[in-house]
């Protein structure tokens, strides 16, 4: 029983991390048809910025998380403005450009801080464990879940209550029609990149807590699982991404534990292929 609880909490923590990456990825793809291969790199940027602030910068943990998120958001906005926007009329090149950034950014991090994992300072309050139904669960799992939940609620409020949320929802359905109502949809593009970058880099900062360390390829390694989540949840759907993240995180943890190691990862990846094949419309935007 205690193993199951621990696995569930770990799976949910991992799912929370996936959600932080996938929610932005999903919005970006849903609205702009850009599959952002640099999204994992944005997570790493957030992770390293937070790590830097917490160690060299000497700030407290929470300030470091804020710093990481701000830096990641800025990087994401810069990416959209400098690279994605000028390639507007060449959709495939937009994807290729993100591939290039996805290669270059982790390499740059590696160049500056080395390829080895760097231990992430754990604040005393979050490094402990709590007892839950007989299991000893690390607190950081709950931090991630709380963060993901907060992001989910904030995103839903944004989408439901604000004019830009309305524009994003409409744009996911039919971008051309949004412009045909006199709306400059490019602002919404920058905005979803900002949101996606913020969520991913927040995920990065918290991933340091979850994994205990940061390394340059962390984000890219998570990206493929985020793709699974995005496709499963339906492109452009934030709630769908949340449900799918939980599912993927749990399946992965349990399968890795109870069957051969690695089988969970494998099954999730194969799941992506199967999903796309049985539900090719999974890629059409649906906001729920």
């Amino acid at each position, binding site marked *: 029983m205690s193993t199951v609880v621990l696995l569930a909490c770990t799976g949910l923590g991992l799912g929370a991390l996936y959600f932080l990456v996938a929610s932005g990825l999903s919005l970006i793809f849903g609205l702009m048809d850009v599959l952002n291969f640099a999204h994992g790199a944005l997570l790493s940027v957030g992770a390293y910025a937070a790590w830097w602030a917490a160690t060299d910068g000497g700030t407290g943990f929470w300030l470091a998380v804020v710093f990481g998120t701000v830096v990641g958001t800025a990087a994401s906005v810069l990416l959209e403005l400098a690279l994605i926007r000028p390639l507007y009329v060449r959709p495939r090149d937009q994807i290729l450009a993100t591939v290039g950034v996805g290669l270059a950014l982790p390499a740059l991090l590696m160049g500056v801080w080395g390829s080895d994992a760097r231990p992430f300072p754990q604040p005393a309050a979050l490094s402990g464990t709590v007892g839950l139904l007989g299991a000893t669960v690390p607190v950081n799992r709950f931090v991630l879940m709380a963060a993901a939940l907060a992001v989910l609620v904030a995103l839903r409020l944004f989408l439901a209550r604000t004019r830009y949320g*309305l524009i994003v*929802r409409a744009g996911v*359905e039919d971008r051309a029609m949004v*412009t*045909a109502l*006199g*709306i400059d949809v490019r602002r919404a593009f920058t905005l979803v990149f900002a949101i996606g970058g913020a969520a991913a880099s927040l995920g990065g900062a918290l991933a340091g807590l979850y994994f205990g360390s940061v390394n340059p390829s962390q984000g890219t390694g998570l990206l493929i699982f985020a793709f699974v989540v995005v496709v499963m949840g339906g492109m452009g759907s934030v709630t769908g991404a949340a449900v799918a993240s939980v599912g993927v995180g749990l399946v992965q943890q349990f399968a890795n534990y109870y069957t051969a190691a690695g089988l969970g990862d494998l099954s999730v990846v194969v799941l992506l292929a199967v999903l796309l094949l049985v539900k090719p419309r999974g890629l059409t935007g649906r*906001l729920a």
Partner: protein
Amino acid sequence: MSLLTVRDLRVVIDGLHILHGVELDVAATGVTALLGRNGAGKTTTVRAVMGLVPRTGTVTFDGADITGLPTHQVVRRGIGYAPEDRGVFAQLSVAENLRLAERDPDPAYDLVFELFPELKQRHRQAAGTLSGGQQQMVAIARTLLNGNRLVIADEPTKGLAPKIVTEVADVLARAAESVPVLLVEQNLALVRRIAGRCAVLADGRTAHQGDARALLADEDAARRLLGVGSHQPETTAPEGSSR
């Protein structure tokens, strides 16, 4: 002096030449009809004017060249557009569809709800669950919400039951009293009723421009340009084909 002039409009999509030099003048008052057989290029012309497809040539609106403008700026010049497939956002409610279209500080909801009382009753319903006719009302309502200087409606009666066709025609006729309308239409009875001038496209070119009623009265010309005799008007109305 026409409000919208299109000269030598050419469109190439994925290597396919679709328009080969369309000429079009939209009168500053009343309804101008854009006619032509299926596949003649009417929708593409309208989309090109809106900047929704890559195009060359010149499009002048109210004296200003708008050829190079992105779509949202074309619209902001005061052009309301109801596209062929209606372009309503299925997942959004009626109210949200309308709210998205708001550009003026004081949108004309009074007018819209007077013309389409149904939209007021159904303002919380998801637009995707509306009937075809109701969706068309949303599409037209969005163009009337703002003080536009031109309304472009692409086959607003396509697939509607005759009774709804009449309703839509009434609304368009009424709208045309205050704002010029460019109407793409296959329903010649409706054209005869409300259109003043017309342009006819054939194979991506302008084949004829002139007075709409004069064209429809000339059986030979109508048959040659539109593929129909002009004296069989009601049968050309789509008989409530399911949609």
